[in-house]
């Protein structure tokens, strides 16, 4: 009990108030860029191992992989280059995309976990220089539209072992968060004072998820999950301005043990984001489209008895993005990732790192490349 309390205390001390994941110009519209709810280990494999990783929050059943009380925390740095018809820019921003505390319950085949993950991110700062006519005279202006924040996913989940080969899990999700948005206009003519308007868009919703993992033989493990997130209410400065349907997610994954040191995995997730289309269009947005996300990768552990000691992880990923910049278009991303880590004190402390190269685009007009560097700290007291 003391260890659980200590773990929670440590985790609470380091978890930040806002936990958005990496941002993107493809997160400017709609609800933002979807988060991945994965630990640094899963990110190193492109997300392929997420359904079998107890420190990720994709499937509640994966909590069963937490062999002891565990706290994990990740920090992500995003170095992006964007290209649009308006110009190019180099951008960077640090984020904290995943936090989890969990562990098995003694004398029960049950594992509980509490996680705080990024659901979508709307972090951007857009600058628009222009010249307008006021009182018959041209006046140079500079507009800036900024947003910080996103939607977070607070999950309480449990995984239950059914014998040696099956695990089922269920989770309840509180979907909450806010965007602090601001628009500024400055004038070159000093007779005009700068305008600054601010608002806070807050979101609130509730979702549920279930998952199952089955072991087939000695080498194959299969996972399936489903999740529904209901509707999220959108408030502007505490006044409700609308509701947006959130998607149902279904996914499947398989992990294959090639040798005791080498595992390969693949995962696919499908989300019917188009259910949000009408609501977003009614609010004046560009709509939403269904998305498919697929990833594959492997993990090589030089010492299978100490799987967190200098593993080599590699993965590739493809994902469609739900919120196009212009209505009717589609945006997608590709990524290649590499990861590893170090363990200390009989694997009671682990430092992991992953590096992902991502390419995002919507047609030829809007492109983005990014280096996404994620570091994670896991403690098992």
């Amino acid at each position, binding site marked *: 009990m003391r260890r659980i309390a200590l773990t929670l205390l440590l985790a609470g001390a380091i978890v930040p108030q806002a936990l958005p994941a990496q*941002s993107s*110009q493809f997160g*400017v*519209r*709609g609800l933002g860029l979807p988060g991945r709810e994965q630990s640094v280990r899963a990110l190193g494999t492109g997300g392929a191992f997420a359904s079998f990783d107890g420190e990720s929050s994709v499937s509640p059943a994966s909590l069963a992989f937490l062999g002891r009380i565990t706290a994990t925390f990740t*920090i992500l*740095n995003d*170095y992006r280059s964007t290209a*649009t*018809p*308006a*110009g*190019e*820019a180099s*951008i*960077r*921003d*640090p984020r904290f995309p995943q936090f989890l505390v969990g562990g098995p319950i003694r004398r029960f085949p049950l594992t509980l976990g509490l996680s705080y993950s990024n659901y979508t991110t709307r*972090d*951007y*700062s*857009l*600058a*628009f220089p*222009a010249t*307008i006519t*006021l*009182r018959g005279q041209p006046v140079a202006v500079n*507009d800036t*539209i*900024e*947003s910080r924040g996103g939607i977070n996913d607070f999950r309480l989940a449990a995984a239950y072992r059914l014998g040696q080969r099956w695990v089922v899990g269920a989770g309840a999700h509180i979907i909450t968060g806010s965007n602090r*948005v601001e*628009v500024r*206009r400055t*004038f070159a003519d000093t007779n*005009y*004072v*700068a305008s*600054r*308007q601010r*608002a806070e*868009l807050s979101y609130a919703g509730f979702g549920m998820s279930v998952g199952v993992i089955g072991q087939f033989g000695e080498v194959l493990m299969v996972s399936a999950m489903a999740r529904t997130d209901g509707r999220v209410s*959108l408030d*502007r400065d505490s006044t409700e*301005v*609308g509701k947006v349907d959130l998607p149902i997610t279904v996914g499947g994954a398989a992990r294959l043990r090639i040798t005791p040191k080498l595992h390969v995995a693949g995962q696919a997730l499908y989300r019917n984001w188009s259910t949000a289309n009408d609501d977003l269009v009614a*609010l*004046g*947005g*560009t709509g939403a489209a269904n998305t498919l996300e697929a990833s594959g990768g492997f993990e090589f552990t030089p010492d299978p008895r100490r799987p967190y000691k200098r593993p080599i992880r590699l993965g590739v990923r493809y994902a469609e993005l739900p*919120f196009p*910049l*212009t209505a009717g278009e589609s945006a997608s991303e590709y990524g290649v990732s590499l990861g590893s880590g*170090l363990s200390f004190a009989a694997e009671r402390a682990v*430092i992991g*790192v992953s590096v992902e190269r991502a390419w995002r685009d919507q047609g030829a007009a*809007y492109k983005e490349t990014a280096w996404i*560097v994620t*570091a994670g700290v896991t403690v098992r007291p």
Partner: protein
Amino acid sequence: MSRRRRWLGGGIAFVTLAGCQERLTQPGECPALCPGGTPEVIEEILDAIPQFDSTFTGYAERGSAQVLLVSGGTPAPADTNIAVVVFQPRPAEIQFAGAARTYVVDSIRLGVGLIARDTAVKNLRFEVYRLPPTLDTTALTYDGVRAELSVASFLTNIAVPDSALRGPQSVMLRAAEIAPLVLGPADGGRLRIAISVVGDSPTGTRIGQRNSVVPTSFESFVTPDAPTTQPTEIEVVPEFDTYVSRVAPVPTPDLLTVGGVPSSRSLIRFALPRRLRDSASVVRATLELVPSEPIRGLPNDAGTLEVRTLTSDLGAKSPVSPLVLSSRVLPANATTTVEVEIGQLVRLWQGPNGLPSTLELQMSPEAGTFTEAVFGSSRSGTTPRIRFEYLRAFPFERP
């Protein structure tokens, strides 16, 4: 820890810490990268409420601004202002060598405190006249004072160098020059003078009133009657001063008058629409006033039109907000529309606890400048108005 581990750990720490910087700005592009659209500036003109703009007079009397206006033929040819100064009694005896003694006046210095002048007018001088002890200072009139200005009552000129912009100007009178300044029993020891001003062309000046730091001065340099004596000085200060005016404009009820003596102020009320009061972001607001006649005033010594807003609208005695003030210098003889930027005032009108949408106009220094403006009103067909530029509330909720 092995060297390799230390390098790896150090690398992770470096990437983690060095990357903790946010640089998010990128070029926006509409409509794709433009959630909510672009801010739109809306231009709107708001006229004053008809019949709710008016002038009130009597806020400040002459001399209250520690200034006396002295002029000849300005602001208008008919305008002439003459200063009247009565000094405190000069004592008949002074304390010298331990006793009260009579004295002999050797010389006298008369001075005037120049506060402002028209620098374009050369050879400026003050003409000083002696006023009789019978002058009733409680019932001064221009005609009464003007009748006393004659060759016989002329005392001296106080010349003002063309380079002098402000400060004390004086003349020293000696020997026979002081004869007209002898104070007889009928004077009660008091010197009474009138001061007018002339130059190469009609002009005016502002001189210091008795409560200012540069009042009119009267210094006597005397020799006491004593076996062993030495020169000493007697200085007396004004106990009364004012000025009389040939013309006293009376505000026209159908127009808006600002300035003058006694001073006039104008109140202008506007009905601020809810779209402006509630959520608009006012980026510029300009009060536009159309002069119904050229601005009266002394060239090169402009007064300042001050515009304030009220904390509560109680009519002529409404308290004004001390927080902000808009102003505009009013050059003499200007006829073009007067524009005053009042954005900071208008923003005080906004919100649920906004101040009354009423403007108060007054001149500065009040009752201390030649400047007087008469503007059109809602009754004269040239209604005061505010030209707004504002932005509506941005549709942040548009994703």
